[in-house]
């Protein structure tokens, strides 16, 4: 009798197991518990969030094998969302709107002065973008590309200008991401060869170029608005979903896992695409045109912004969580080691005293030193932090080997 009962139980477990395994590709829906932190629409000024990054070593608990239950991971996700994600996205929207206005004023009254105003605003907008870039979770991928994809395809842009009768925002919305967004605006507003008066002349003598630029700035606001709406509690409310998706371990859907892996991808992009490729290309030849910001020569500040935001995410609770998850003692808590490495990396980047585009030719050693420092940071995140958190993303089955 017992064996019969167990056999039935086994059959039941089989069916249940098969259903669970087959459904494991689906995102489980987890309703937020009533007591769980929720995301509030906040007007916290981004400047506040960025103010003086605290020393992670001071902020974090000592590395001990302590209870983890006292750490509210969900509250940490809510804190990151409220103090960083939402305000930084709002800031980006505000800056793109300001850029749209500056471009409109320039188009209305083209002059070196209005051009310069637009250029300054472009840099501010690019700064805001580089602080949002670390939050490029999967659902944002398409709209991220609309806002900024580089390198820009100038051949496409010139073809559109030559061939299209009307260039307006709907046209820009209809074309591919390599011919629009922040980098395309940079292509029109800046030049390493032309002076500002010459840029003004180039745009005023070709109305379609000015129309393209204007339409780009309008489209940028639309795309950014779409991104902000995705996160906003009033729109797609991904902010709440981000906090709710507090799945742990190797679950690919877990916000902790997604965010940590996005940060790793970002730092690898900085090391490889933003520094190594311009430095040595595919055949050890420098590729100065491949820098992130070739026309405005603004690549290095953008990298520093990326790293500062990473630091802020750590200070908003991720670093504390990393240390609490430590199971083996370290001389320096890992979060403090990461923080120190970020500072060192920023110092090596700021030591490059000419634009990256020129530095890869004139001072490659400094660029190499910065690249090596980013690589060291990458090891701390991708190897040490990922191991400590047990958050290696697994897209397929795994049995731990």
């Amino acid at each position, binding site marked *: 009798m017992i064996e019969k009962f167990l056999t039935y139980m086994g059959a039941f477990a089989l069916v249940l197991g*098969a259903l669970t395994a087959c459904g494991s590709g689906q995102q489980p829906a987890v309703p937020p518990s009533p007591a769980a932190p929720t995301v509030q629409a906040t007007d916290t000024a981004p400047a506040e969030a960025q103010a003086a990054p605290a020393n992670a070593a001071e902020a974090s608990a000592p590395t001990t094998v302590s209870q983890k239950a006292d750490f509210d991971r969900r509250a940490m996700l809510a804190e990151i969302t409220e103090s960083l994600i939402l305000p930084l996205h709002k800031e980006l929207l505000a800056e793109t709107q300001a850029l749209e206005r500056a471009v409109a004023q320039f188009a209305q009254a083209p002059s070196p002065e209005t051009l310069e105003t637009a250029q300054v605003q472009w840099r501010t907008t690019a700064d805001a973008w580089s602080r949002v870039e670390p939050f490029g979770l999967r659902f944002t991928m398409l709209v991220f590309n609309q806002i900024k994809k580089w390198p820009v395809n100038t051949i496409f842009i010139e073809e559109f200008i030559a061939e299209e009768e009307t260039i307006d925002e709907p046209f820009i919305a209809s074309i591919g991401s390599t011919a629009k967004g922040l980098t395309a605006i940079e292509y029109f507003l800046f030049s390493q060869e032309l002076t500002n008066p010459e840029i003004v002349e180039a745009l005023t003598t070709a109305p379609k170029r000015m129309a393209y630029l204007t339409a780009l700035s309008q489209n940028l606001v639309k795309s950014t608005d779409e991104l902000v709406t995705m996160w906003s509690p009033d729109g797609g409310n991904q902010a709440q979903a981000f906090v709710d998706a*507090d799945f742990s371990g190797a679950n690919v859907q877990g916000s902790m896992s997604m965010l940590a892996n996005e940060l790793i991808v970002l730092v690898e992009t900085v090391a490889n695409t933003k520094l190594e490729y311009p430095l040595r290309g595919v*055949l050890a030849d420098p590729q100065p045109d491949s820098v992130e910001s070739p026309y405005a020569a603004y690549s290095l500040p953008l990298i520093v912004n990326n790293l500062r935001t990473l630091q802020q995410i750590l200070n908003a609770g991720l670093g504390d969580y990393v240390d609490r998850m430590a199971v*083996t003692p370290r001389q320096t808590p890992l979060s403090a080691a990461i923080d120190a490495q970020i500072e060192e990396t920023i110092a090596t980047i700021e030591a490059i005293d000419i634009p990256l585009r020129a530095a890869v030719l004139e001072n490659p050693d400094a660029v190499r030193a910065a690249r090596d420092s980013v690589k060291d940071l990458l090891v701390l995140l991708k*190897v040490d932090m990922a191991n400590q958190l047990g958050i290696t993303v697994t897209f397929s089955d795994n049995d731990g080997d």
Partner: protein
Amino acid sequence: MAAAHSFHEFISLASPFVQRKIEELQKPVSILPLVVLRIVFGLLMFAGTVRFMVNGWIDAFYVQPPFHFTYYGFGWVKPLPGDWLYVVYGAIALLALCIALGVFYRVSMVAFFLLFTYTELLDKSYYLNHYYFISLLSFLCIFLPLHRHAALDAWRRPAIATHTVPGWCVALVRLQIGLVYFFAGLAKLKADWLFNAMPLRIWLTANADFPLIGGFFDTLWAPYLMSWGGALFDLSIPFLLLQRRTRPLAYLAVIAFHALTGMLFPIGLFPTIMIGCTLVFFPWPLPPRVLRKEKVCAAPLSAYGAARVRTAILALFFGIQLVLPLRHWLYPGNVLWTEEGFRFSWNVMLAEKTGHVTFTVVEPASERELTIFPSDYLTYQQEKQMSFQPDMILEFAHYLACKMEERGLRDVAVYAEAYVSLNGRPSQLLLDPTVDLTRRTNSLAHQAWILPLEGAEPIQRMAASPVDGD
């Protein structure tokens, strides 16, 4: 016959106990355990294959990547071009259904084994112990009469229908499953697992918000309890399942163990497969009236195919399985770190390992130097797996050298800087970064360019660790 004769001579020299056991294995037993196995195995393989296809893994794993990591000695196994891989997976699903139904059983099982194993040999980035288990089980089942009852074959050809099989047919399946558990238990007898409760400490604390029992995972002693319990479970479960008195409780433990691991870790169908396959440990007795009618009794070994050849093949088959999991003792160092002798050894869930490797390509004549991030060439999964496995890093270094020569560089040297963290240890270099990997070849011999695992031993680490334990 000569072999059989000498075999019996050998047995007669052996102890009466062994002789009695051998004779018992010739006695007829119910075929039902094998029938259950066939249906469960066939249906689960069908579900698993369809799931693999639906998840888009054929494309992501085998079609998209331009480069594949091959197994030593199987470099010639390549993905079929075009849509042929989809045909292969479709065929595997169809064959699995044929197996479940017991139609064209022998041919289906042979084809299933070959095609399934072919797909597994395509790229070792996707190596999983349970895929290896499926290959082994399907190979074994080629030689067993799983289709002689409750099968379309038995219905079509009443002459082969039977209610009983010699005991050894069922015993071999139990042996196969028992070996998996036992060696998985043996593999857990490592310092990290036993004395540092790693990697369960990492994984369980990451699951501290697991419903109901999450709080338990968060205690200091829970990972130790589960590590030791897990090792004890694996080592003892085959024996407990064999005994009539302990079998019911043991099977409950099987369900509980696999259900828990299935909920905690992304291990797909593996828990279900093991819960299903261990049903073979139940005797599934036939009603006495059926047994009385049964003509086939004490069927000789030769009743199913060429006995001598089969005996030799199966002896070799199990012999290899006894050796492979122990081969890592032939290599110096910690197998979890060096991975020499790691695969095909039931090292299941033993390591939380992360790595990052960058390659430096140097053309000596021009002094040109390039840093290569492998993510430019490999998929996420491939890169992740390669980053901590020396043989894969070596294979990729050779591939990189070929790629660079295609681009016009000559006589390049390739160096790897691989940082790896194992079970919570701080990251450290896995390989000697000064060794030109193009001058090294993959072989079964120990690779001296793998650096030893530095740092305190787990036990000392434990003692030094500021555990507050509350």
